[in-house]
Structure formats: C-alpha cells, structure tokens
C-alpha cells in the first residue's frame, strides 16, 4: 500500500493519458480536461505547503538569529501584507482605519516572532501580552470598520491601490532589473569563456563574434558579415537545434515510459 500503490497509480493514469491522445471523442476529452483541472487544483493546494516552508525557514532564521535574520522580517512582512491587500478593498474614497489595520497586523506578527525568539521568560510573557492586544485591535478594526471590506470570492482585491502599487513599484522594478542584469552577465560570461583553447571553444568564439558584429559598420566586409550571421542562424543553428530536439524527444519519451512502467523509481520516495 505504502510502497506500491503510488507506482500503480502512475501506471494507471499514465497509460490512460497516453491512450487518450488518440481518442478525440468528447467523452475522452472531458476526462482529459477534468484531469488537467486536477493538476491545477492539486498544485494550488500544494502552494500552502510552499508558503508554510517559506514561513518556517524565515521564522527559524529569526529564532536562531542566523546571519541576516533581520531581513527575514522583510520577507514575512512582504508576504503577509501582499496577502492582506489581495483580499481587501476600500468601499468608497476613504481608507478609514485600513492603514492602521495592516500596520497593527504586522506589529502583531512581529510580536509573535519575538515570543518565539525570546529566551527570557519575563520578556516572553510581555511580548505575548503585546501580541494578544495587537491581535485584538486588528480583529476589532476589521469587524467594525466599514470603509473597507474583505473579498474572498471575487477578485476585487486585485484592484486594491496598495496591491497594485506593491506590484508596480516593488515587484516589477526588482524583477525586471534582475532580468536586466543579464546584459552584464552575458558580457562577463563571454569575456571569461570565449578563449580559443581548443577547436570547439574556437568555433563557439568565432560564431558568437561574427553574429555580434552583424551590424558593426566599421569592420571590413561588413555587408558579408551581416549575411553570414543570418546564414549561421538559419543553417548550422537550425541543424544543431533539430538534432538536439530529436535527442531530447527520445530522452523524454524513454524517461516517461520508464516512469509509467515502473522501471525508473528514483523520483518517488520510499519508506
């Protein structure tokens, strides 16, 4: 039951989906869509595990005072604030006690962290009381303040100004800057690795140099360089890609068949 049932399930579901591909009928399509919905829903439920893991790692870091533990507060604050914003929206033009509410909520979270991290019993008790008071205040505001409300079943929270601002002015700049770091890393990687050590490295180097100079007007025969780089992209690059794709295809099918037939079992835990 513990050991074998998962592999039996993999076999049954795998075989079914494999055969389903050849059956276009509505009924088989219905099952296919239903199973796809399963994977989505299971994935969402699993996110709770992920968030718990993130939470636990951060909390442990604070508790153990590991290097850089202070920054874990930033992570936790960002996480909770974002979730709070995503479920709430103001009803009119005024915010009421909304800002007070989420700030108190964060303070409450901080106090709970202190309860966990503190070793001195006296101070532990104090933080406990503080966190209880803050919690009570937060709950009270969310019950009695009518200027804003919770929305769990509709996506009004996505239009919350604070939610949008956090997305537009924190997430987007950092994420796109991370992406933009590639401009530098592509330069340093090229500098470090493109050395004519052997024939293979030399081919890599020359192909890259040629393509990089495709719009450089100052090199002799510039026109032919542009044409040659187009040729490189459409001929050797295409050949390489096609060979790799077919190899990958065989690898994917072989691995998937081994998984379904229970020959390969390393991906699943035992015990």
């Amino acid at each position: 039951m513990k050991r074998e049932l998962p592999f039996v399930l993999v076999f049954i579901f795998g075989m079914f989906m494999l055969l389903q591909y050849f059956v276009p009928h509505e009924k088989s399509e219905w099952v296919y869509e239903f199973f796809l919905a399963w994977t989505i829903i299971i994935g969402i439920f699993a996110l709770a595990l992920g968030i718990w893991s993130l939470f636990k790692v951060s909390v442990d870091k604070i508790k153990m005072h590991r290097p850089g533990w202070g920054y874990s507060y930033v992570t936790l604050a960002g996480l909770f604030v974002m979730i709070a914003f995503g479920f709430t929206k103001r009803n009119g033009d005024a915010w009421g006690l909304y800002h007070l509410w989420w700030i108190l909520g964060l303070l409450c979270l901080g106090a709970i962290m202190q309860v966990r991290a503190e070793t001195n019993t006296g101070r532990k008790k104090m933080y406990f009381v503080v966190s209880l008071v803050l919690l009570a205040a937060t709950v009270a505001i969310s019950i009695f303040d009518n200027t804003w409300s919770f929305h769990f079943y509709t996506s009004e929270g996505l239009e919350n100004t604070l939610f949008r601002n956090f997305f537009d002015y924190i997430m987007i700049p950092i994420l796109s800057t991370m992406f933009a770091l590639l401009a530098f890393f592509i330069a340093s990687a090229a500098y470090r690795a493109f050395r004519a050590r052997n024939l293979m490295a030399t081919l890599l180097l020359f192909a890259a140099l040629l393509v990089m100079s495709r719009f450089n007007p100052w090199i002799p025969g510039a026109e032919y360089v542009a044409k040659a780089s187009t040729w490189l992209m459409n001929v050797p690059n295409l050949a390489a890609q096609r060979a790799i794709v077919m190899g990958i295809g065989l690898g994917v099918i072989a691995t998937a068949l081994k998984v379904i037939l229970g020959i390969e079992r390393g991906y699943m835990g035992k015990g």
Partner: protein
Amino acid sequence: MALYKWFFVLGFIFCLCGMATAQESGVPPDSANIDTISQSIPPPAPVTDLQAFDTRNDHGHSITLKWKKSADDGAGNNSVIGYEIYTWEPNMVDSMAQLRSEIDQVRAAIYGGKKTGEDLKKKIRTLKDQYDILLEQLTVAHAGYPEGGEWRLVDKVPAGTETYVHLGSKEKLAEGYIPDYTDLYYRVDALTADSVVKTPSVVVGPVQCYGQWFNTEQVPVLITVILFGVLILYFVMLARKGKEIYVRPIGGIEAVDDAIGRATEMGKPILYVLGLGSVSDVATIAAFTILQRVAKKVAEYQTDLIVPTYDPIVMSVAQDVVKSAYYDAGRADTYKEDSVFFVTQSQFAYVAAVNGIMLRDLPATNVYMGKFYAESLLLAETGALAGSIQISGTDEIAQMPFFIVACDYTLIGEELYAASAYLGREPILLGSLKAQDYAKAAIIILSILGIIATVLGFTWFTEFFHVTS
C-alpha cells in the same frame, strides 16, 4: 421545387440583412458611388460542387465544407473577392442567446456579492432549466428546416479558398454551440467587392456532426510510440538477463562524483537547483532521479545539501526523494528537514534568492538540472563568481549556450535524460539508453531514405511520417 426557390429568395434577403448589420460604420456609403460600382460588377458565378460533412478526427461539433470556387474567382470576370458561409438556424437560438446573457448577468450579480433581496440562486437554476429545455428542442427545431428559422452568417473567407471548417463550441452554455447528431444546412455565397452583388450557392444538407473514437491522423505517432516502447522493453529485458551494456563516458556525469568529494573536503555545501519546471515536465522528473543519486552520495559523505525550489509540488517530491536517499544511505538521522525549501513562484525573485544563497553560503558545487529559462545565465555567472564548480543539464535549447559558456560541465539535451542511468549504473536503466541509440539509428536511416525519396519524388514515403495536427 417552387418552395425551394422561395427559400432561396428568402435566404438572399436574410443575407442582405446580415450584411446591413455587419456594416460597421454608422454613416451609409455615398449612394451615387455605390450605383456606379454596382453597375460595373455583374453578379458572379456561384460556387459549385458544395459538399458538407462531419469534420474527421475531432470531438464533434464541427462541419467541414468543400466547394469548387466560382468561375469568376481568379478567372472569368475575376470579380469574386471572397465567400460568405451561411448556416440555417431555427429562430429559437435567439431566445437561447437571450437566456445565456441573463444567466451571465445573474451569475455576475451573485459573484459580485450584491445583495438584491432576490433569490438569485433560485433564479439561476430556473434560467438554466429553461435553457436545458430549449436545448432538448434544438435538434427537433433543426429537423424542421426550412420552417421557423433563418440563414445566418458564420464567417467570411478570402477568394481562392475552397474549404472551410465550421468549428463550433462544445460548451452548451457558450456562443456558437453546434449540437451533435442534428440536421444542419449550409450555403456559400460568392462575394464581390460590392457588398450588394453576390451569388448564393445551392443549399447543402442535412448533415450531422459527431465525435470520433480514434484519430486516424495520429497513426504514425501511435506506431512510433509502440515501436519505441517495445524497443525499450526488449533492451530492459536483455539487461535484466545480465547482458553487459557498454556506455561511453560523459564528462558532466563523471564530474558529479568528484564535485561531491570536493565539497566534502572543503566542508562546504552542495547547491542543487531544480529549475523552474513543474512536476509535469519530464526534465524535472529526470532531475529528481539525479537528485536521488546525488543526495545518496551527499549523505554518505556527510556534506550539506541545499535545494531551493520554485514549485511547491516539486518541493514536496524533492523532500521525499532526499529523505529516502538518506534512508538508503543509512544516514536517516542526519537528514535535515529544511534542506529542501520553497522560495517563491516568481522567476526572477527566485533567482534573486538563489543568487543570494550562492554568495552567502558559498557552495562548493552547484548542480543545475531541469527546466531553465532566462535565469540560466544569471545563476551560472553568479555561481562562477562565487567560485563554485558548476554542472548543468537542461532540455531548453535556448539556454544551452549560456550553460555551456558559464558552467564547467554541461549535459546537452538528451544527456540529461541519460544521466540518471549513468549515475546509478543499474543495468536495467542502461538498457533503455541502448534502445534510445537504436531509435536514433532508425531516425538517421529514415532521414536518408526520406531525402532520397524526396529527390526521386516518392512523396508517399515521406507523407507516411507526416503528422498534420
């Protein structure tokens, strides 16, 4: 016959109405202008040989139309610019559309959480019941052709076209739903540049659509899957019987053992990055089996392992895999629960965190296996900056150049899938590598035969391998 003609005229009037409503701009065109053009374009010849049949190899709810183009399309007067496809629909589809929009409104009201005092739940149920009743009558109404219905425009296609697939929705509550096993009628009008001048074809029908139970277009795929499966099973059996199988050395895989040893010597951890794939990517599953071997060695050598993950299910599976690897190595006591942890489900936020780990924990070895996208170079360059030995393997072709440039060892494409067999050295798994080689040999031979066939003009040979959809 007289009745038929009568409907012909009626249909023509309807299609005029359709065109009038299809007119987008509110201002009517200059009437004098229209007259001059109308005079210049005589009505074109109609399309001939119109056929309608159920679309093959699909789930139903779709009809394919075929016709021979009008004599004035590309020849003759050369006046045809396109065709309009019409289908006959009973008038009750209007009331169905009405019900649909009402249902949508009520649903929006319910999800909007607005308290109206009305029992919306009850209302939506009655509306749906009404809709179901109409749906049941739909087939009967279609059979009543040509009474109680009208021709409606389905689509327009440009001149030169000779086939059209009327792709309906299979969702009963969606617009454009075509019922299965129901008599449908079609007509194709030859269209000139002047929207008034057009010639309808004869009506074709009744025709019914329905779903198929086997997709004949996919036969080549089925055959190749079965052949490959048999090949794998055969070599696995052979390996099980104890036949020795040679595999050539692959640099990246040999390096894994050394890298773990090096990490132990330096007393530094090993970072294993599973990429951005979810469990549904086979590359990630291959990465799990490699993780299992790596974790076992790590447990034996008593080194630390860090596995930051991007997907919560990948995290769960990875935890399971690492834990059992520690059990297998007999070191269950040294397994640390939080060596596999979740970071976030955002590509570059994940990269930011992993880069931070690399610079702060300074792992001796970074292993990247699985699906990687634009973050490949961000990770690999930071790892190189931190002075780690780096081994990578991905099946994302676009990222391979970056891994090759920035990592010490790279498994190119298929080598990723071969790696777990290599690391384990289990004869059964090596057997499947042999099968993959035979499949590659088959591909090479077929390509050569195919190209000869193409040069000689034997298209039947290449067409056999042609998968259209």
